[in-house]
């Protein structure tokens, strides 16, 4: 990793609650290069919130602070909304965890993709329409013509994910934050969708933040993995070493996976320790933080 596309230092997201301030993200730091960075972790550990904070999408009363949040050499921490909008969906795109909820429910899918594309590339409607069809085909939508004319509630869960991916890739972003982008896809469609993202990283040097619960997939697809627990990064690993993780949380995750080739009566569950909330980071990798 030479120059970082994105640099995050001591990122915090805080919400006021009845029980006092709740820190959803507690000091997350990492650099993103032209790589596939996996993020795995406990449900509620702040993965999505980290992505939202980078894009300035944390809704008040939530508050975002950081020692540094830079895109290239520009600080993007708490930018005014107008400037943030120029970055969002242009230089950085995010595929949301609830894709169908993030699409406009009263606008046809084709029009949404065409609009996203033209906002970035300009050009005529016909060319954009052709591009939209191509992209839907690329994400393995069987009948792209029909889907172009459909509304979000008329497509399946996995189709919604793929439509969102097609839309977010339309502007050719420098960075893609993909929040569980393939969780509703069958494995064969998933492979095709991953190949597209993989190609963008390899051929165009895009930086990819890939949030996922699928440990085996992350180990195979990503270069590096951050493990999050209770708002922090507790371990950073080369993806291929994921199965040799040292942190007890990560080890526990690996043990609770069901396996086709190894049936068990009951799945192993974690005995979570309070100390995991505050263990020091393990820095095995240079630049890993």
């Amino acid at each position, binding site marked *: 990793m030479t120059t970082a596309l994105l640099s995050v230092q001591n990122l915090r997201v805080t919400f006021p609650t009845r029980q006092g301030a709740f820190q959803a993200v507690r000091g997350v730091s990492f650099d993103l290069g032209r790589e596939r960075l996996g993020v795995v972790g406990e449900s509620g550990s702040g993965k*999505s919130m980290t992505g939202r904070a980078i894009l300035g999408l944390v809704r008040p009363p939530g508050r975002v602070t950081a020692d540094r949040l830079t895109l290239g050499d520009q600080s993007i921490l708490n930018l005014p909304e107008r400037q943030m909008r120029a970055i969002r969906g242009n230089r950085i795109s995010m595929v949301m965890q609830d894709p169908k909820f993030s699409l406009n429910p009263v606008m046809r899918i084709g029009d949404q993709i065409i609009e996203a594309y033209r906002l970035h590339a300009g050009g005529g409607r016909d060319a954009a329409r052709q591009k939209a069809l191509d992209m839907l085909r690329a994400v393995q939508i069987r009948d792209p013509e029909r889907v172009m004319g459909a509304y979000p509630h008329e497509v399946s869960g996995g189709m919604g994910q793929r439509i969102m991916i097609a839309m977010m890739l339309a502007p050719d972003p420098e960075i893609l934050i993909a929040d569980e982008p393939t969780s509703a896809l*069958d*494995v064969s469609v998933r492979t095709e969708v991953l190949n597209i993202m993989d190609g963008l990283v390899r051929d165009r040097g895009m930086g990819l933040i890939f949030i996922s619960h699928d440990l085996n997939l992350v180990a*195979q*697809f990503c270069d590096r993995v951050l493990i999050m627990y209770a708002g922090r990064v507790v371990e950073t690993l080369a993806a291929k070493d994921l199965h040799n993780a040292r942190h007890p949380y990560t080890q526990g995750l690996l043990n609770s996976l069901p*396996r086709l080739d190894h049936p068990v009566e009951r799945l192993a569950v*974690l005995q979570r320790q309070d100390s995991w909330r505050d263990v020091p980071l393990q820095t095995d990798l240079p630049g890993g933080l």
Partner: protein
Amino acid sequence: MLTVTDLNVWFGYPPDRVDAVKAASFTVAQGESFGLVGESGSGKSTILRAITGLIDTWSGQIEVAGQAVAGRKRDRAFHKTVQMVFQDPYASLHPRHSVDRVLSETLKLQGMDDIDGRISRLLNDVGLGKGFRFRYPHQLSGGQRQRVAIARALAAEPKLLLLDEPTSALDVSVQAEILNLLTDLRAEHGLTYVMVSHDLAVVGHMCDRLAVMRGGRIEEIMTVDQLRHAGATQDYTRHLIAASAGYERS
């Protein structure tokens, strides 16, 4: 417990008509756990939605606990017997209803007593502490919302649970807790499950038999034993099983 015969489901009118499910038939015995897997967009959610009465454009027979159902009409007894966990928890939870309200309304509708105690137990069962009881959906993470949806379905103490990707938004440790909970409930109360999942290992762990779907049709119905031991007879199923071994960078 559930018999589906020659089910066709369509949306819209020609020439734009979409045939989402074509001549699907399967039965699920009382106490059995049945998996639905297959291609994205192949009609898995549509089958579950037709069973619960969310779609009226279908033909064929659906029988639940010996009772045939028609169109979208379902009586209160049906919802006491059948509950569904939706693939998309955000869309199925009312944005302005707190977790407490979601659960208490379901409990009251089913005429349950000790609402307060039940809510605490349900939240505890799905691994959400007291602190979540008065939150609204937008104040929850994706996996927390999914667990609220599971708690709501369990609140009615149904006999048949239709689960659409119930653990796809959960990290694998929480997934293990939820799957163990479902296993226990099935053992204790003889619950019947129909579970949609793209994760063959989850289906292998939870189910006895499964149907493999593609393009609106059931391609094959097989036992989990066959799934584990390369017993698939259809090319598509073999392909699916082979692909689930993992991702290889090209």
